[in-house]
């Protein structure tokens, strides 16, 4: 199965929010996971999800601080750091679809995403969207 990069970004963002990571950080790492996943080689979703929330926040701080000191010359070794730096520098998104995300990683992301959804109730079904459920007119 292959994925569009935007669905990887959005799904991973939701998964990280579901895991309790703040939205603004989750959005960055959703994009980083999508960038990393572009092409045939990398499971960027798995790579990001293997780091816990504190580790992601610390990583972001480390890379941003390094970029603050050396905006153009700071260099990074780990693929996740490198991709995060590309993201923070505003490098254009890669163009290839994500072809190497494992089933397990994607499933994990979807499971975590579920935690951002509010369980269905009759009241919310009837009142929450402001419309009826039948449109035969």
């Amino acid at each position, binding site marked *: 199965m292959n994925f569009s990069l935007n669905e990887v970004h959005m799904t991973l963002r939701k998964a990280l929010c579901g895991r309790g990571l703040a939205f603004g*950080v989750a959005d960055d790492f959703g994009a980083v996971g999508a960038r990393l996943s572009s092409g045939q080689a990398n499971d960027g979703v798995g790579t990001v999800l293997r780091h816990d929330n504190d580790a992601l926040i610390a990583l972001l701080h480390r890379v941003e601080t390094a970029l603050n000191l050396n905006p153009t010359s700071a260099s990074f070794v780990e693929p996740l750091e490198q991709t995060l730096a590309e993201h923070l520098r505003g490098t254009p998104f890669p163009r290839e679809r994500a072809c190497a995300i494992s089933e397990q990683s994607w499933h994990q992301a979807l499971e975590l995403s579920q935690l951002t959804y509010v369980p269905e109730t009759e009241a919310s079904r009837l009142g*929450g969207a402001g*419309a009826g459920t039948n449109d035969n007119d």
Partner: protein
Amino acid sequence: MSAITSSDSRLELRSPDTVMRLERLGSAFPTRLSFGRSMIRHLMADNVEVRRTRWTMDANGFGRATYTLELGGFTYSLIAFSNALDEANRSDRVIAEAWDASFALFDGVPEEADLDRLEANLPRQEAGRYSEKELVISRSNKSVRLFKHVAHALAEGQQPDVDMVDSIGYLMRTTAVYGNGKFGIADRFVFSDRPGLSGPFAAEMLTVWLIRNFTHDLVEHVAAALGGDKAVRLDPAIKRHMGIGNSTGLGMAPFLIYHPELIHNWLNARETAIAQVRSIPSLTSAQIARLQTLLERAKTHVSQWHVPDAIQTERLDVLRAELAAMDEPDWHADYPLQQLIDWSLSQSVECQELVAALCLEPFDSLLDSLTDTMAFNAPKTFDAAQTVAQIRAQVAAHYRWCEGFDLGKQESQQRFWYVSEAKLEPRLGDRYEEDGADKEQPLDIARQVQALMGSLQSFDDATTLADVLARHPEHRNIAKRIQAAAQRPFAEVRDNLIDQSMRPIDLLRCKLAFFGAVKFDPKSDLWTRITLFQGAPLVSELQTFGDDWWLATKPVVATA
């Protein structure tokens, strides 16, 4: 026309404190910059011909169809599947699981294998899986009343009742139009640099315009099957007045808030256009004649806009009265459009926005290039080296509007935006009555700004945002927004989006007006129906009809 000589630096845009309030956004009208209009202009400029390349429909109008066209050197196809639908399942909500018809805008010409693959997926919409060849997917439900009426009238050799066509406006309404990678379809960047599809929602607009054409063909097909030799085709004027409907709920509102850079570009283009026409010193006689015609058309359009919603009806009653009482504008005055727009300031907000849209309409060569500025394709950036002092200064300069909300009051935080687990339908809840506020979507901008400012009190002015956000990652979202808004005055909706009195429908109308929607038909504060492409050229008319279809009016058709 008279140029606005060396005047760009003199252009004075309306203040974002005025423009970005919900009441005004919720009074928006389509303009010549709307995406449906610019899409049609692209089709006209490129001499596009739409060919119906497949039509396999049974007598009831169930089956498959494809249409193909070339635009900007690329080939695209609309793929349509029409299915029988049990009335019990006909719902415009996201929670629906079946529709009358489903569609894809396909990149290229589909093979039979593509059609078979999509026939197994498209009718299931969100439950299906798609490829990079699908650029947009959509689905639609019939207006049962109008579809039946038109099919039966045509079958009997009669044209449909024009009043009914006008009051409903469409044979089908789309209930979602998905783009940008959803469910595996192509990312937007696949086509965002292609001629004709680079504008915001351009691929979606092309899809919807083609769906409109499909609905016309479908009703004529059903009528022919019903009536045989007796059946007639739609009068082109009536057909042209049949747009394509859309049913829209809360999902559109978070989109506006999550894309501040894009929304700024939309509003900035429109506001620049308004400022430009205000700066025109005098009008030619041809421009005056055009404005007079357009003003009469606008009055007629508004007189034909009737909806059941009490609030919108009241607003329309006021608007009609204002237009009826309006003196003939002094078209020969100095800066006549500035005078007209200034006159409107004493009228309702609906009237103000209608007059502004009217004033843009005649000025194609002056304004149409502004549509090139309305997309936002650049990667978002964030300056973590910025200091606490700098972010405080930006808040002081660009978020003063937040200070007006007393977030200590219960009603100021009454509502919360969330996504239901039921097919991920976006919904709005009551924070004090319902569960789920712990899963709230971050649309509480004013509250986030105030929380950030509270946290900043414990940091020195010289501390970098990187250091602040390492300790307070919960503020990263709003810090990004503040930086984006500092460069973009129209990035933020300057209202409290969780207030008890907030009407989400205002956000929906703003976005839909930028699409080109007319005949807003609110079903509640959270939900609206609209019509797109009413009066727009038919596929056979791209070279003959022109770009003159702003606020279409009911066609006058000779009766037999």
